[in-house]
């Protein structure tokens, strides 16, 4: 075991650095804040929405809270972008979220496995294709939300530089993209981080930072092999 990140005694490995854990925590709180103050504005005629808005200080208060979390999101995304740039530039770490051809073949292999056409699912590296898809969806979604949100915050400024129609278009985009993010997170993220049979009831690695060697071998065999200085496939799959 050459890597310091591997704690062989307890059979646990370090998966996320403290900075990454903080980033996830901030994003999580921020997301909840944005959803709680955003969705009731979209569905404002519903009773639950009016109850929520009333309890969060009325519509004027809710809009200020939403803006606060929106600006926090901008900061978080910029912070993340700087970190990602540094990772890309340092040859040692690299950019493990980069999508490559293998992710597409992995997706096909895994779907074939679900359908019974393949004996084993694809073996994944640090992030599997589902995680990359969620990451990139979130990233693109964040950019859309930030740009459309700023447009809605400063409509008169935007109309000075572009057609006025951008503003209602931004509203439609903000409202739908936000709803989609909420639905994707509730369905996909909650399934994969909570209800997934491998991690049920709760995948705590993003909070504790560590992951069991057993789970690594099962979910990220390629990364594990690399960390342990082996050729992938030495141990075969986690099964």
């Amino acid at each position: 075991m050459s890597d310091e990140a591997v704690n062989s005694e307890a059979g646990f490995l370090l998966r996320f650095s403290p900075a990454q854990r903080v980033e996830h925590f901030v994003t999580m709180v921020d997301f909840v804040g944005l959803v709680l103050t955003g969705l009731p504005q979209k569905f404002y005629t519903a009773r639950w929405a009016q109850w929520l808005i009333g309890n969060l200080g009325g519509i004027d208060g809710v809009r200020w809270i939403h803006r606060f979390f929106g600006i926090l999101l901008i900061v978080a995304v910029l912070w993340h972008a700087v970190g990602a740039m540094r990772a890309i530039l340092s040859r040692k770490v690299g950019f493990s979220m980069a999508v490559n051809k293998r992710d597409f073949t992995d997706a096909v292999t895994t779907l074939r496995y679900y359908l019974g056409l393949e004996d084993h699912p694809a073996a994944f590296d640090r992030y599997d294709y589902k995680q990359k898809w969620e990451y990139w969806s979130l990233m693109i979604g964040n950019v859309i939300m930030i740009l459309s949100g700023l447009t809605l915050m400063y409509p008169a400024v935007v109309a000075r530089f572009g057609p006025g129609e951008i503003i209602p278009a931004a509203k439609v985009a903000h409202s739908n993209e936000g709803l989609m993010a909420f639905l994707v997170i509730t369905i996909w993220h909650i399934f994969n981080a909570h209800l997934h049979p491998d991690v049920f009831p709760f995948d705590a690695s993003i909070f504790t930072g560590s992951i069991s060697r057993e789970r690594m071998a099962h979910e990220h065999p390629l990364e594990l092999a690399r960390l342990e200085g082996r050729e992938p496939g030495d141990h075969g799959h986690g099964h």
Partner: protein
Amino acid sequence: MPMRFILVLAVVLLAAPVRAEIPAEQDSCLGCHGSDPSMTMDLPSGEKLPLHVDQAAFGKSVHGDILRCTDCHTDKADYPHESKPFKNRRDVTVAYYEQCKKCHFSNYTKTLDGVHFQVAEKGNRQAALCVDCHGSHAIGRPAEPRTRVSETCSNCHKKVFDVYKSSVHGKAVTQGNPDVPVCTDCHRAHDVADPRAGALSLRTAEICGRCHTDPKLMKRYGLSTNVVASYLADFHGMAASLQKGKKGKGDRLAAGCTDCHGVHDIQRPDDPKSSVMQANLVKTCGKCHAGATADFPKAWMSHYEPSLKKSPLVWSVQIFYYVLIPFILLSLVIQIALHLWRVVVNR
């Protein structure tokens, strides 16, 4: 006549000791108050209080065959009348105004929530009381004809009435068109809301919507009934609806109907005087949106639903998400279902 008067008076006076609580009959009052049109009383203010009652006008009024004089003038059952220290004519009106509530209690209670009562309570003696709008002896049905309502208000609110008279609604009222709103349709009659607080303008969607969502009425003028729905679906409508419960000046920030279309001066949108006429829009939007420039008004889709023709960009974004959201969610759900199915099969 004098002979008859004396006879009647004699009967009343004779009956008085026994039936003092029974008010004098109409005729006996009119014996004095119905005969001489120039009958007046001098008040300390120098005003003359007319004491003549137009019998024919009272007879034709809504109360003509219901009320007797003393039903309202309760303190005048005895003769000679007890003298009251009225300084001026307004004193007389104020002193008698609460007589109406004996019968019209629910409308009287409503006035207690009205702006006229609020200012009266603060000491404004000119604030409208029942008789200022309804009249006293010649009370008719209030909205017959409807045009009378706004004219009644104009007795005090002359300036606003003149503005209203030249608006699209006011012009039609003057031509006898019963479809358009008169003052009380928006402001209400007895519990007249204080328009200065801003609470009224947050309710405009509901107030204007009463007519502007009525298909039968709007069809007559070729107007859309979708104006309120499209307003409520957008940002202004959302914010205004949620601010509705609030009162006070600083609280509101979302535009209601009247903030763009005008209040008493509403004109057709194709009228050059209209605040929502294309050429005037930058100024109208600029009332709230500081720094609004020529293209800013296009941020509002003028009550139109986005379409390929009207707002292609907005329409495209909408279609994009209508397709994308179900596609993404369905893909995710199918993958989760397949995954779980595989887990079950493997066991």
